[in-house]
């Protein structure tokens, strides 16, 4: 699929602020199943943008506005082509112990947020003891949305897994964090993915829509057979499915804080008001032939 | 004012400053000599021998170093000791008791009593020189502070200050002449912290100069840095100010003209001398010039209080 993405963020401050420093992780990545064709950013007030690849390989755009200002607009536009990934492999639980797997899993198998061990996950953990890691992952996609309600406003960006358990509801970020903990407990390496989701109905009614930044995860599934390479498989527990061509990945990390779309700080006492909007448009010919 | 009184005030200033700088130097040597030389070859040398040379007393040789430091502290018979300088200052203060303020007289009196009683305070013990030196430094700061706050800014104060200033610059030059590495040695690889400690300019140097405290930049700082009150240049500047205001007709006053020439000379050298230039000769010349100023001062203001052959040098 071909998309045009526009991510417009605007901060309005209650007074003038200075030294507004920001880091953006918004550029669609280029992977085996996705290609970023065009990418532009415009900052108002104007600022020099510098780029670098972070530890996890995500492109980071940095800028700072040192002078006094009362509003800040970040306008990001991208064009991206996606395709469905190949079917996930069906390796066995034993394959998780293979050296090749552990090497590829690296730090994504370590129990980052599960320290100290989160209580009250025993039953969910047990439920995932299926025939193969792939089945466990597939079940997870059903289990999480079955148990937890998707309800914005219950949690915030800094919420922990325990907050989700307590509230019984949360957003995609919380669902992913819980899933990561459960998979890692089973020895399946898993990482947090930040990106955009084309959430139009399957019949392709609209060709342009307002969406949000989205989060899902990638699990490292062992390959089938002797010596087969393990594969990172995208899984979206919020939407009960594996990630496909509707998912536009920006980057991954151990958890949310490794790939926040916008992270910033400014100097001044004024409060800020944020409006953010992501608009995705399908550019494929069959979609533009409107019904 | 009376020439005799001006003369006494001038020497009161000199002796107070001398006591203070002797204390600083004794303390610096006391600290430094306990330990071995630093990792890096020291570019400057300032130990017991240097101290004696600085005080113009190189022949005096005590058997033990701590005895020497002790004598320089509390031996009143030894002309260069702290106590002797304070005793002389005390005598002079007694003579001009009606001119200086009551507070200042008391401050000087207390100081001499304190030093005389040093034995009871354990200042003859091995750690004594340090304690006595600390006492002297504190008392001198107090005396000058009291003088500044309680004395009229008149002729009397000018001569008191002039004595202090000329003594400070003389002592700094003496120390530099003794401690600067001889010509031809590599002056850049040493560190001259001890010089700065000996004149109390350690932190001032670190804040004012970015170069590491090697012999050369330290000597330049002590000679030329106008912002540092105890540098030679700053003292000479102030000397010019006090004589200008004390003199009835500064325009044709020999000491004023000479001080003014020396100030200009120092300023020129500061700008003209390349880094690493030989400074020993400048130190010697400057000190010589100060001695001449001292003579001119005696001649013009103290009405022949000094005999004409007093200028000596070795």
């Amino acid at each position, binding site marked *: 699929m071909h998309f045009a993405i526009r991510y417009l963020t605007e901060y309005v401050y209650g007074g003038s602020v200075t030294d507004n420093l920001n880091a953006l992780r918004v550029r669609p990545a280029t992977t085996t199943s996705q290609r970023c064709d065009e990418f532009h950013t415009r900052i108002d007030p104007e600022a020099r943008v510098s780029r670098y690849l972070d530890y996890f390989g995500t492109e980071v755009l940095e800028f700072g506005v040192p002078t006094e200002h009362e509003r800040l607009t970040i306008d990001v536009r991208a064009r991206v082509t996606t395709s469905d990934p190949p079917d996930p492999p069906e390796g066995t639980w034993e394959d998780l112990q293979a050296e090749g797997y552990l090497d590829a899993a690296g730090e994504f198998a370590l129990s980052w947020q599960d320290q100290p061990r989160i209580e009250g996950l025993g039953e969910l953990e047990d439920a995932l003891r299926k025939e193969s890691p792939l089945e466990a992952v597939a079940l997870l996609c059903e289990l999480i949305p079955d148990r937890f309600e998707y309800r914005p406003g219950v949690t915030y960006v800094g919420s922990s897994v325990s907050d989700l358990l307590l509230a019984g509801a949360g957003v995609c970020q919380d669902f992913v964090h819980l899933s990561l903990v459960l998979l890692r407990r089973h020895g399946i390496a898993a990482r947090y993915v930040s990106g955009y989701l084309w959430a139009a109905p399957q019949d392709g009614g609209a060709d342009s829509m307002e969406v949000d930044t989205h989060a899902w995860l990638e699990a490292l599934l062992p390959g089938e057979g002797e010596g087969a390479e393990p594969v990172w498989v995208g899984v979206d527990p919020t939407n009960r499915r594996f990630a496909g061509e509707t998912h536009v990945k920006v980057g991954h990390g151990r958890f949310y804080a490794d790939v926040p779309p916008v992270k910033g700080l400014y100097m001044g006492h004024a409060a800020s008001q944020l409006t953010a909007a992501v608009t995705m448009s399908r550019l494929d010919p069959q979609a533009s032939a409107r019904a | 004012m009376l020439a005799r009184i001006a003369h006494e005030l001038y020497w009161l200033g000199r002796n107070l400053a001398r006591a203070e700088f002797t204390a600083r130097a004794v303390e610096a040597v006391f600290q430094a000599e306990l330990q*071995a030389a630093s990792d890096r070859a020291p570019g400057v040398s300032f130990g017991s021998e240097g101290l004696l040379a600085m005080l*113009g007393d190189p022949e005096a040789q005590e058997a033990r170093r701590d005895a020497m430091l002790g004598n320089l502290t509390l031996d009143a018979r030894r002309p260069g000791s702290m106590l002797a300088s304070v005793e002389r200052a005390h005598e002079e203060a007694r003579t001009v008791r009606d001119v200086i303020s009551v507070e200042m007289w008391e401050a000087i009196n207390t100081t001499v009593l304190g030093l005389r009683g040093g034995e009871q305070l354990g200042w003859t013990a091995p750690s004594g020189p340090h304690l006595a030196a600390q006492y002297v430094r504190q008392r001198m700061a107090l005396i000058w502070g009291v003088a500044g706050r309680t004395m009229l800014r008149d002729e009397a104060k000018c001569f008191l200050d002039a004595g202090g200033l000329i003594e400070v610059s003389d002592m700094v030059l003496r120390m530099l002449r003794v401690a600067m590495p001889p010509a031809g040695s590599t002056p850049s690889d040493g560190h001259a912290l001890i010089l700065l400690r000996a004149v109390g300019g350690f932190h001032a140097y670190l804040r004012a100069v970015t170069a590491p405290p090697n012999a050369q930049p330290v000597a330049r700082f002590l000679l030329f840095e106008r912002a540092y009150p105890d540098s030679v240049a700053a003292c000479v500047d102030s000397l010019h100010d006090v004589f200008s205001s004390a003199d009835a007709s500064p325009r044709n006053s020999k000491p004023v003209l000479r001080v003014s020439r020396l100030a200009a000379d120092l300023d020129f050298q500061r700008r003209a001398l390349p880094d690493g230039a030989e400074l020993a000769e400048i130190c010697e010349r400057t000190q010589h010039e100060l001695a001449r100023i001292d003579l001119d001062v005696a001649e013009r203001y103290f009405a022949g209080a000094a005999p004409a052959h007093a200028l000596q040098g070795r």
Partner: protein
Amino acid sequence: MSSPSIAAEVSTYRPKAPFLDELFELDGTPRPVAEPLVRELRRLGVEGLEAAGARRDAVFLQQGITFETSGESGSSHERPFPLDLVPRVLSGQEWREIKQGLAQRIRALNHFVDDVYHAREIVREGLVPWRLVAGCRQFARAVHGIRAPGGVYTHVAGCDLVRHSDGTWKVIEDNVRVPSGISYVLENRAAMARVVPELFAAYRVRPVDHYPQLLLGAMRAVAPSAESEATVVVWTPGPANGAYFEHAFLARQMGVELVEASDLVVRDDVLYMRTTRGLERVHAVYRRLDDDFSDPLEFRPDSLLGVPGLVRAYRAGSVAIANALGTGVADDKAIYCFVPEMIRFYLGEEPILENVKTYLMHDPEVLEHVLARLDQLVVKPTGESGGRGVMIGPHAGEAEIARMRLRLQAEPERWIAQDLVRLSTVPTVDEDGRLVPRHVDLRPFAVFGERIDIVPGGLTRVALEEGSMIVNSSRGGGSKDTWVLEDGDDADRAGPPVADTLPPALPDLRYGGWTGQQQQQQQVLF
């Protein structure tokens, strides 16, 4: 001053077997290096030491070198820094070995920091497990791929050494984040020289007071500045910090600004400080706070002590930070085990200083072994410092051991276990003025700029309680002045020659008055 009973007192000092005493043989005779010291101590006697102790306290109180201690009633009061007046004496030979060993170790640690944030060669060679590095709390992903100016990361290092009863020196811990204590080394020496100068009489002790200049030189050497004079600052979390005294001390001794976060600002990837004359560029920062608090944009977002954008400036190469961000990965207690391997791998040398035998418990067999011997081992949490959370098996109660067993079984990777080291002792003045053996360690301070310089000696910390081996000052430890003796004969005792042109004698007051003219008037006859 010395009475027979006092002389007897020093001669009855007995080291406590099986520990090695650094000044006395087991039978109570002074070691050769300590003989002059013991003689002077005898001369001082109990009374002399007491008087000197009072002077020392006065000096420290006057200078404000104090510790806050809270009494039982909850009221806090200041007490002078606990410096024991009996110095620890190391021969020049002994020191050379320590110095070489430390320099080697620090060089290897510096290589390691560079390696884990770049090529990870040591991991690819299979010498250090990646999981241990990545799992280390101090592994700073934010500085991945950033090469520190001058290639130096561990500018300031303070490794903790102990002396085993067989006489060998062992490294017990590496500190390459923000090691503290150097100000006490300098202040201790200054106080000793003032309070007990007689003890120095028979020795040539190598001085320590050039440390601030070494540090300043190292900072200037790595500072990325085109001009010859780089602007260096010391960055403190603020006066509320326990080590603020040291921060101020170093800033004053180096003659540089002591800055807090609010003084610093990053503009266009360059670090500035706010001065009365506007922004002034900063080329090198000696920071005295942890990575976590340094830049809220990259580390803890809630840090109010940090400078937003600092990592950007660092990434742009416009500022040197000492120690570099992310060095904590090298002094993690789990990584410690691999330092000898690092030395072999990066330097191709055999380690000069030994490690203490250490057990990593992610291996179930090792864990089993440790659990069986908990009462004989020392257990430490990884990623902590300052003696926090340490359990010393032989000194721990049954309940404490049982609790530790549960914690080890739950999270074996968060702990390491070490063989108990029998720390050496040095005679120390106790509350009654008697000399008693007390355990000590040693933290030498190294500075890495263009080369590695180590100040002779370092901070000797002493456990003031009988039998205790906990030397941390936060837990009631004291300190001693550490003397490294100069080698060679006394020939170099005489200072260099005094300059050849001497100043004239001090002028004296030239009293006026009439001088009699003794000469007869003579007529001149032609």
